[in-house]
């Protein structure tokens, strides 16, 4: 399968060509070329997937293929860095995710970004990002992964800051880059620790379950915790940064300042799940040697998931709702990995996590692209500038609704199947955990339908000009992704992706499924009552049917109770404080680092005075201090 090298090479080539020609070509030509190249990449990825899953199963186990692997940097006698391509079920699955979403975003952007300044630059950056992301998922060793990981960071920095005339976009780009870099520091230290003791970077050696590789770690501990646990925890911190886990999630909502298709690509489907992918990649180590860290991951995931879902309920910017929803859904994936074990039925969580990653990528990309379509039509991100759009934008309306049903977990949409597997795995781990995740799933259904109704139903907002459906290039990706969302749930995922690469058959747990569907339907009903109609209709009904008036008013009373509980109690006492905590404490701490640095540099500025005599004085003083310290200490 040597041709998989082309999957990497083509986007890189595309970036170089588009980057070099800059504005010499017409924007349309650059966009078309970029899209065509990506179509080829996607076709190759699909073919590779087909070939891999059809022909590379040996004795019932999917092979690990390395069609290309070269030694690139010999470091010491035993430690060397390779560059190569690793094909196994999860990397092949990611190939499909990345190339599909990227292709959709390429097509969609032809319409969305039309007429923007720097259109060619935008497509060049998109190609760079796609290349980096594909390189990340195909990496054969952790070091190669790290390099592409950083490259992903760089290219997303460039994409978030694309609207460089907007100060908030620039600030967001910087925030995203620096926060994730901070986490990457943990990742790098983790890699160094791991490679120092195991003497290898290769995933193959690290995850083969060979205990001798980890012999170097025996008895080495730091602060009472084994160094292997430290290393794996640090690596997870790197993943938590990219995947926006609490408390490193602060950059993601701000990153929504970038162009909406970019949010769909980076902040919904690909880059943000890199952390999940990393944990999945190293899963055998987490499971066999550091189960404590793995459980920690589950707790972090569960907390983040709940936390983000609560915040999503009070947001009014539609992209921010989607951002918090993404954080929450990635939390689900992390939980699934955290509660999983190796092998067969025990590895249900692993499979569920990958399944959800796949389905979520599709429907969340759809939601973002749909939101982009809405923003394109009304020129605002604010919910209360929308309402009643279903008449004007039928395609967006229906596709958005499909995505909402999927994320809420309503059968037969794809999100139902993957979320159900996660909940089943969580219930197996601990009933409390399962209950917590089910509650979060209910919240998800609630805020998604609050979003849906506020955009497409409710009171119509007065628009300066009538909103219109988006052009065909933008509608096409929506329809395609909607179709995937409808049918992806029926993919027998366990037969393809599993923790030990042995296919297994997973069945729906009917109890869990029915509980989760009931909770979702209940939440949707609630959202329907609250947000579908403005309060005018009840009063109209009240005058026409006075008999029903009492019922309506008592319903209103129930409404009041619900409103009181949600708006007064939950919103004021839970969501707001959490949002406040998020804004002031978490953000404040990060800002604190920056201002302390600034303050420090202001204080010592006086030393640099321009006086040579003073320089000589400091020089001599320095010499004498060093001499004294060396001699007497």
């Amino acid at each position, binding site marked *: 399968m040597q041709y998989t090298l082309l999957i990497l090479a083509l986007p890189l080539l595309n970036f170089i060509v588009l980057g070099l020609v800059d504005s010499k070509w017409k924007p349309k030509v650059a966009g078309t070329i970029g899209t065509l190249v990506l179509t080829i990449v996607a076709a190759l990825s699909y073919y590779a997937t087909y070939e891999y899953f059809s022909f590379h199963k040996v004795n019932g186990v999917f092979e690990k293929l390395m069609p290309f692997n070269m030694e690139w940097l010999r470091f010491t006698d035993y430690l060397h860095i390779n560059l190569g391509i690793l094909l196994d079920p999860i990397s092949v699955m990611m190939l499909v995710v990345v190339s599909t979403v990227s292709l959709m975003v390429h097509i969609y952007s032809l319409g969305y970004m039309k007429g923007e300044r720097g259109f060619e630059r935008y497509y060049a950056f998109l190609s760079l990002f796609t290349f980096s992301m594909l390189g990340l998922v195909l990496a054969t060793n952790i070091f190669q992964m790290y390099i592409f990981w950083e490259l992903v960071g760089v290219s997303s920095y460039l994409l978030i*800051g694309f609207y460089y005339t907007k100060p908030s976009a*620039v600030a967001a780009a910087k925030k995203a880059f*620096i926060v994730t870099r901070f986490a990457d520091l943990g990742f790098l230290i983790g890699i160094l620790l791991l490679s120092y003791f195991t003497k290898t970077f290769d995933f193959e050696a690290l995850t083969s379950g060979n205990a001798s590789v980890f012999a170097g770690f025996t008895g080495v501990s730091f602060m009472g915790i084994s160094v292997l646990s430290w290393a794996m925890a640090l690596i997870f911190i790197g993943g938590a940064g990219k995947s926006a886990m609490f408390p490193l999630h602060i950059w993601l909502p701000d990153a929504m300042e970038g162009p909406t298709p970019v949010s769909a690509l980076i902040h919904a489907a690909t880059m943000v799940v890199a952390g999940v992918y990393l944990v999945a990649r190293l899963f055998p180590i987490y499971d066999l040697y550091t189960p404590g860290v793995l459980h920690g991951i589950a707790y972090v995931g569960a907390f983040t998931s709940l936390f983000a879902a609560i915040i999503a309920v009070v947001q009014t910017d539609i992209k921010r709702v989607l951002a918090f929803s993404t954080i929450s859904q990635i939390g689900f994936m992390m939980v699934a990995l955290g509660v999983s074990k190796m092998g067969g039925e025990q590895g249900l969580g692993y499979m569920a996590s990958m399944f959800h990653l796949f389905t979520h990528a599709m429907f969340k990309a759809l939601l973002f692209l749909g939101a982009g379509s809405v923003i394109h039509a009304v020129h605002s991100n604010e919910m209360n500038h929308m309402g009643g759009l279903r008449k004007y934008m039928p395609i967006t309306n229906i596709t958005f609704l499909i995505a909402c049903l999927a994320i809420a977990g309503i059968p037969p949409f794809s999100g139902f199947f993957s979320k159900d597997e996660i909940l089943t795995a969580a219930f197996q781990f601990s009933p409390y955990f399962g209950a917590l995740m089910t509650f979060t799933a209910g919240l998800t259904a609630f805020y998604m339908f609050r979003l849906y109704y506020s955009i497409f139903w409710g009171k119509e907002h007065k628009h300066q000009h009538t909103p219109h459906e988006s052009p065909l290039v933008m509608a096409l990706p929506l329809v395609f992704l909607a179709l995937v969302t409808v049918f992806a749930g029926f993919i027998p995922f366990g037969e393809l992706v599993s923790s030990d690469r042995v296919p297994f058959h997973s069945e729906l747990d009917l109890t869990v499924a029915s509980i989760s569907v009931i909770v979702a339907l209940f939440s949707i009903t609630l959202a329907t009552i609250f947000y579908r109609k403005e309060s005018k209709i009840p009063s109209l009904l009240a005058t026409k049917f006075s008999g029903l008036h009492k019922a309506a008013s008592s319903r209103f009373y129930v409404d009041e109770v619900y409103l009181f509980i949600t708006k007064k109690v939950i919103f004021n006492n839970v969501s707001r404080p959490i949002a406040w905590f998020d804004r002031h404490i978490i953000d404040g701490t990060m800002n604190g680092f920056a201002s302390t640095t600034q303050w*420090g540099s202001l204080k010592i500025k006086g030393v*640099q005075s321009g006086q*040579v005599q003073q320089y000589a004085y400091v020089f001599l003083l*320095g*010499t004498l201090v060093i001499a004294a310290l060396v001699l007497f200490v």
Partner: protein
Amino acid sequence: MDYSSFLQMHEEFSLLGIMVFLLVYDIFAGEKAMKYFQPLALILLVIHTIYNAIPRDAFSIAGGMFEYVPMQSYVKAILNIGTIVILLQAHKFLNEETNRIKRGEFYFLIFSTLLGMYFMISSGNFLMFFIGLETASIPLTTLIAFDKYNRKSAEAGAKYILSAVFASSISVFGMSLIYGSTGTLYFSDLATLITGTPLQIMAFVFFSVGLFFKISLVPFHLWAPDVYEGSQTNITAYLSVISKGSAVFVLFTLLIKVFGHLVHQWQPILYGLAIASITVANLFAIRQQNLKRFLAFSSISQAGYILLAIISGSAMGMASLVYYVLVYMFSNLAAFGVISVIEERTGKVQISDYNGLYQTNPRLSFVLMLALFSLAGIPPFAGFFSKFFVFSAAAAQGFYVLVFIALLNTIISLYYYLLIIKAMYLNQNENPIEKVSSDWAVKLSLAFCTLGILAVGLISGIYGQISLLSFGM
């Protein structure tokens, strides 16, 4: 005495030959022949570099005054390449009406300092070392004050000579103490004679601050920003890369060859200096408005990172040091190249002047962005690998805390490097710097540096080749 063994000093003689030839050419060539002065000088230097870049067998001549080991060929080659790049960048400046008459001097002085560094690197005796050091710094002073009617340039020259003399005198005092306690100045003898008596430790500290000054480590760095700001930008580049690069290599070899027994003294010293240099320089860099001063502080912190390679004292440390200097040379010279061409054409050096540079000068902005990414150590650019090797060298010797502090500092540094990238690409400006046209020489130098930034990290053979010749304790 048989002087024929002196002929083994190929590299020194060939450079000296070029110097003399250019001096004579400069005096006797007519108006027409003078047009070819710069191309000729560059071609000669390129030939000289290629011819001498291949390592030979180690030898020692003049009774141990001059000691050659194969690694020195690489170090000298890096210095040569850097000098070629700088001369390319200075090409247009030296062709200007006012400077044409001083062109010969410029080349002669630059080659003199280079020759001084050669001797300093290959010295086997403190006297030889001192002669090399002074041969390198005194012509450098004249270069700094090259534009002598410019107040800032003259001031920078004065500051540099005063500080350099002060540093040298302390250094010589240290040497005298070494001689006093051991009775010899030959490195080979001193290795066994220096055993760690208090007098010798004092001697070591006084001697080494001379080199710390050259490398501009905190607190011996105060001259650097003023001098960098005042000198002509190409000379600033020379100071920050070539002069510094030679000094770190010498420091490493001396610490191992001569002061090997004092390892428990010099490791803590370097430890402290590394932390101080990286941190203090980072804090200052954030505040700078002038790009040249900014790069001065950036280069001080980069020097701090190099100390991590020295502190390890291992063969891996030496390999990573030479590799670091090579990568640092490409990155820093790319940055200085862009700054010098913009300063020359428009006179602008403030960071705020660079707002919106991308709109008018996309190529220059791109090169500067690559250079800054490389300096910040972001993969896959070469700067990442050099930092990685240096950190690994230190970590392999157990300096985990130091590596951790250095890693934290790379994040702070990322912040200020990004400030410049942000200015160029993201900040808005009503009237950004107009489009500047660069001549072929600058284009060539920038293309070469860009290639270096992109390729040196990715071509694994380079590090492998360097590490073959490295040695440690």
